[in-house]
């Protein structure tokens, strides 16, 4: 093993830091007294609340209705009383209209939650409807509504489904543990998605720092010819959609295009688990596996948490902060979003809560770019980050566009390798925003 592992060009080898939690079985987090469920946890239109303050709700009950096609409904993750509907800080950074439910700790299941029967008896449209009704979104971080991804236009022929088990972000182990502890659900969810897309082949891509997961899934797949496991080299950003598709198929998603342009759909491990739950139990997406980890937490753990559980509760469940806590991050260290408060809830895209101490969070001052070309050599997109950044910082956004700023996937590789600690991704992000708003105007 190892030599034949698949991969892409560029990328980096950050320290894994997975030792904190990779061997720890998923623990069920206690039901919080209060959950905060944002009405926008996905890319697309926010939901409208369909419950009122004071109303009683049950687990799995729809409390936010999606307004458009590119949207996903939200459901109550606990039973209890709707206490407030107001704007609350969300891990995305903004204050989002959220439904706050006071839990009665009984976890009464809503009447609408009923098993949908066997997968063999369900048609593709029915499965897609279940996915849409269950509010399932991409659970790797970005949170794109899954049913939209599963509805490619007529002219895009899909012939391969890739399940993203790369989990290339350092520290995070939620997908790893899911692969070890619920491989049956992963395979069931994969089959469901295959049926929706009408594809004959699926590949589960797993980085080879998780050999136990590769083995576990392979054993489960002994009787399956249509699903296979691809061993991927451990390299960041192996789990980026474009890198993953290239590693598995050698197809390049065209600049400005989508995976469907090369006949591929990618789904995250957490997402297919949620799909399996939705079909088997009829339970919408109301809980997920979250890795609570890092140098700033006393007892790092993998937990199964209700959507809407405040970060603070999970921190307490994991022994609390260490003395020198400095940073709380929604997601992994490479692409996660640092929080200014721990009073934000776990949302559908929260794969991890990373807590760093001062030693890990503090940065040296930025100094001049020395043109060492490391950002160029490592960029998985073939960009010259130093040029985009230089132009962006000078306000020359047309030049930044010329250097293909829009092709940046914001993986953070350039900022990671930069010996001068330049704000590379930051300034490229800024350029992308300016370029998009300019194109909208014209």
């Amino acid at each position, binding site marked *: 093993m190892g030599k034949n592992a698949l991969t892409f060009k560029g990328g*980096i080898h*950050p*320290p894994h830091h997975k030792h904190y939690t990779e061997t720890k079985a998923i623990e069920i987090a206690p039901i919080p007294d209060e959950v905060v469920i944002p009405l926008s946890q996905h890319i697309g239109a926010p939901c409208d609340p369909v419950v009122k303050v004071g109303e009683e709700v049950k687990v799995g009950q729809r409390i936010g209705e999606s307004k458009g096609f590119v949207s996903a409904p939200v459901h109550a993750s606990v039973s209890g009383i709707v206490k407030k509907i107001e704007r609350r800080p969300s891990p995305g950074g903004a204050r989002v209209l959220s439904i706050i439910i006071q839990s009665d700790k009984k976890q009464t299941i809503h009447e609408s939650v009923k098993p949908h029967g066997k997968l063999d008896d369900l048609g593709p449209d029915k499965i897609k409807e279940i996915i849409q009704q269950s509010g399932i979104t991409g659970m790797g971080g970005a949170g794109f509504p899954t049913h939209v991804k599963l509805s490619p236009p007529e002219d895009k022929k899909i012939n391969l489904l890739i399940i993203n088990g790369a989990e290339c972000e*350092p520290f995070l182990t939620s997908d790893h543990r899911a692969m070890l502890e619920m491989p049956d659900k992963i395979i069931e969810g994969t089959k469901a998605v295959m049926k929706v897309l009408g594809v004959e082949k699926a590949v589960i891509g797993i980085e080879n720092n998780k050999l136990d997961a590769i083995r576990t899934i392979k054993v489960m797949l002994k009787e399956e010819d249509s699903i296979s496991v691809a061993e991927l080299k451990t390299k960041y950003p192996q789990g980026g959609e*474009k890198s993953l598709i290239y590693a598995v198929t*050698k*197809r*390049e*998603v*065209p*600049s*400005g*295009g989508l995976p469907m*342009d*090369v*006949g591929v759909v990618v789904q995250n491990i957490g997402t297919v688990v949620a799909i399996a739950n939705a079909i088997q139990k009829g339970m919408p997406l109301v809980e997920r596996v979250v890795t609570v980890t890092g140098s700033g937490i006393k007892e790092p753990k993998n937990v199964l948490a209700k959507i809407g559980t405040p970060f603070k509760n999970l921190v307490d469940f994991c022994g609390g*902060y260490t003395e020198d*806590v*400095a*940073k*709380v*991050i929604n997601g992994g*260290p*490479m*692409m996660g979003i*640092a*929080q*200014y*408060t*721990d009073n934000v809830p776990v949302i559908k895209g929260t794969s991890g809560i990373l807590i760093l101490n001062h030693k*890990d969070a503090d*940065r*040296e001052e930025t*100094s*001049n*770019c*020395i*043109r*060492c*070309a490391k950002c*160029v*050599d490592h960029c*998985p*997109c*073939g*960009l*010259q980050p*130093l040029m985009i950044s230089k132009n962006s910082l000078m306000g020359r956004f047309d030049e930044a566009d010329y*250097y*293909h700023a829009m*092709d940046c996937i914001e993986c*953070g590789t350039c900022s*990671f*390798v*930069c*010996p*001068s*600690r330049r704000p590379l*991704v*930051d300034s490229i992000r800024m350029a992308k925003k300016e370029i998009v708003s300019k194109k909208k105007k014209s």
Partner: protein
Amino acid sequence: MNNRLVATSSPHIVSKETTTTVMLDVIIALVPAAIAGMYYFGISSALVMALAVGSAVGTEAAIQKITKQKVTINDLSAVITGLLLGMNLPPSVPWWMPIIGSFVAISIGKQVFGGIGNNFINPALAGRAFLVASWPVEMTFWVNPGAAPDTVAAATPLGLINTSPESLQPLSDLILGRIPGCIGETSALLLLVGGGYLIYRKVITWRIPVAYIGTVAVIALVYGGFDFTYAGYHVFGGGLMLGAIFMATDYSSSPVTARGKIIYGIGAGLLTMLIRLFSTLPEGVTYSILFMNVAAPLIEKYTAPRVFGTGGVKK
């Protein structure tokens, strides 16, 4: 939680490498060849290098103080400029020459353009070119290894190869460094060891040195009628190793693109051999690199890497 949370944008972890560690690696890689220079040319050459380093660091600090900038001598880049200049001087130069050379290198070669990362030519070579133009006699006075400075003028291998090839030193002396020449350029072997270290530490890539040295070797082979000994003198004699491994790879003044580095290296090799074979100068490394420095932005512009997803769709 009493302390406030840090909310900066991703990524939240960075590599251990900093500008200072990169520069320190370059210094480490230069040390063996510098020690060889002291061994062959005596303690006075240590003084030349020390004065060059001192002047470079002093000039950088003074200019940054005067212009009210942050003093960045701790990044060690001025040490490298001084050390490289010192290693590029004949052992017998008067004591004030490294001081003036480093002053010019840092002030005109580096700081006027905005300091580290912004110089468009290699500062040490700018300093050296200034000295060669101003004091050509002192800058081309060579001594034999082991001889006291200021004694008998000796000839470098590249000086002899066109004029009196019968008195050439054996090739093994070139590789070890037992030949007249600049303080730090004579030991090809130790310079290669330093280059290997830099590639191993990923401070530089193989592209510029291999393209540069390879081009010189190929042209020398063809020109010399596939006489490997003749080509050996061009490769191991003179300043090629020091230039190709340590000077042409200067980050600021060489292209950042992979293909650009190859073209840049080949260009420097072509120019070096053009100068060596068809001009009155026996060397040519300094001017070739300076010339390619100026061409680097242009090369970079036309060698941009292929952006992922722009190679046509494969289905």
